[in-house]
């Protein structure tokens, strides 16, 4: 059996393959779910449907999708241009640190000043955090996968260093910062829920990215660089500048994600501000085929599974980590099966025996 290059890809192929991936994911995860004493069908009902059936849980889905929207968008934008930013996690944390720094540094600023300021600070911090790998890639051709990755633990150490040191809560002595000034706190956008300005901001950014990538000259240049850098350069596209700009924009978006989590939800910095949102962003962007619309849909899907996993944990006694297992399995099955878009399986014919002279 071997893979053979496919000439033309039928339009129906990709959706069918994704559906197939969903079925395979279900089959693969059914065993462990059963082992946990739950019915796989009931579990998937919880994961995919229950969160959407009540207003309250749906609002929790929107809330849970917010950080994924930012990191997914950041990764999708960068990957689209051929900058493999594995460091959205670190950029997210950098944004969170910057938000906290501003928020506890000048706590008395009024909202109309404070909110733009904190967003700008987070964007800047995220962009700065990706700047070193971006410059190394553009100027010296140093692969960005490892450099962006390695800055993730460094960012986490910065967070922990600050929380164990200067920002340690003076009252509780816990490794968590003081609360940020009230002017910095993102207002809720749906009364009676926890859905905050960050969600609207993320959707707005997705629209902006969609417009920029799909409708502007800059976007066309970015796509050309991502698809064929040599040909792009030949056509007068400033490849280095495009890569650098995209990398910085990607870092800035991830940084705003960190701001949103601090200013919108936690109102302080903690060591657990990100349970791997940056890494999940890679999952989101990949499953979204690097499109902004896809990022919105996939973020909502993963957030639904996450909220559903918590409810499954309460109702079915199914450990909530099953949600992440389902997500990661779906990712791996999907990327694996989508290879069939470019290749098709051919069963190798038995080769004729060849005659060799002695």
């Amino acid at each position, binding site marked *: 059996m071997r893979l053979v290059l496919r000439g033309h890809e039928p339009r129906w192929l990709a959706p069918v393959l994704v559906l197939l991936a969903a079925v395979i994911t279900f089959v693969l995860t059914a065993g462990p779910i059963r082992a*946990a004493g739950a019915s796989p069908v009931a579990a998937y009902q919880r994961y995919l449907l229950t969160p959407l059936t009540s207003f309250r849980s749906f609002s929790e889905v929107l809330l849970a999708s917010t950080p994924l929207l930012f990191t997914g968008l950041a990764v999708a934008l960068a990957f689209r241009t051929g900058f493999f930013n*594995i460091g959205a996690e670190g950029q997210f944390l950098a944004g969170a640190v910057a938000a906290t720094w501003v928020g506890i540094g000048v706590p008395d600023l009024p909202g109309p000043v404070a909110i733009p300021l904190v967003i700008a600070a987070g964007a800047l911090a995220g962009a700065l955090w990706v700047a070193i790998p971006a410059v190394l890639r553009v100027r010296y051709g140093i692969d960005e996968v*490892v450099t962006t*990755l390695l800055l993730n*633990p460094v960012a986490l150490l910065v967070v*922990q*260093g600050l929380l164990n040191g200067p920002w340690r809560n003076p009252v509780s002595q816990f490794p968590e910062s003081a609360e940020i000034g009230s002017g910095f706190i993102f207002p809720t956008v749906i009364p009676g829920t926890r859905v905050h300005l960050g969600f609207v901001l993320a959707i707005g950014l997705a629209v902006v990215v969609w417009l920029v990538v799909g409708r502007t000259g800059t976007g066309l240049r970015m796509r050309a660089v991502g698809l064929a850098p040599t040909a792009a350069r030949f056509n007068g596209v400033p490849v280095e500048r495009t890569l650098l700009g995209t990398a910085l924009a990607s870092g800035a978006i991830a940084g705003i994600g960190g701001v949103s989590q601090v200013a919108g939800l936690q109102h302080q910095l903690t060591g657990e501000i990100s349970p791997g949102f940056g890494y999940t962003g890679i999952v989101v962007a990949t499953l979204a085929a690097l499109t902004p619309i896809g990022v919105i849909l996939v973020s909502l899907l993963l957030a639904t599974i996450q909220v559903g996993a918590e409810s499954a944990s309460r109702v079915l006694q199914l450990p909530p980590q099953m949600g992440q297992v389902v997500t990661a399995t779906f990712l791996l099955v999907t990327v694996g099966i989508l290879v069939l878009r470019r290749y098709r399986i051919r069963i190798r014919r038995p080769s004729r025996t060849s005659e060799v002279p002695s």
Partner: protein
Amino acid sequence: MIGLADLATATLVGATPLLFAATGEVITERAGILNLGIEGTMYAGAFTGFLVAANTGSPWLGLGAAVIAGMLAGALMGLLSVTLGVNQHVAGIGITLLLIAASDFANRLLFSGGSLTQIDKFGLLFPDTPVLSQYLLTYLGFLVVVPAAAWMLWRSGFGLRVRAVGENPEATDAAGVPVARTRYAALILGAALMAVGGAFITLAMVGTFTLNIIGGRGWVAIALVIFGRWRVVPAMLGALLFAGVDALQLQLAITEAFAAVPRELLIATPYLVVIVALALSGRNVAYPGAYLKPYRRT
């Protein structure tokens, strides 16, 4: 006063998981594959080792189970990155997320999450001798695995094939070496070593399994591989350096005079050193030639 013997002991213990993981990653990357599944593979090794040891009472059986788990993780990475040619970073991150989630799921299910189940740990060799009082796995790592891996890579036919497929798969294929099979073998062997590194933490250092038990040691190993320029012995020295700094800062924290030095800064050092080293060597970093590139015969 800093106890030098204690420092040396702690350094050797702390370096052991890094040593196994980094050696595994060196072998994998020499074959041209960046396995970002390392963090998850170590995690799965730590959990599987703990699980089997807790149920059988034997840390050795636990270690065996961890090896098998690692080999499976390596085979999965092979299926995705070698057979299917998926982006290596996406496949690796996906495997890490999957294995961490799956281990946490099973831990929650079997040990009700906050497992305080203590297992029979590996015993220490030479328990009363300072510094030499270490686990057998530490001795094996430094005295057997590292020399054996170095010998394998540079003096055996298998190692020759591994380095060749990682550098120039087309030429290697033309020489009649099976590229895919060699890459699978390197991935499976490498991932087994990563899993042993993870299992060492549960089976020797800690004696139980806790959430986030690997704590980014896989990423440290990735850094050490580059720091060691894809060589086993320099990567080992890097592991010693890192573990030494880590042990030192724990000791420093006890002594009043150095309490102000943030330990996080010290822990961040290896990552920063690698990035600075990459920046300084510029275009001259000798990545394996086929790094991140899937191979398919045209």
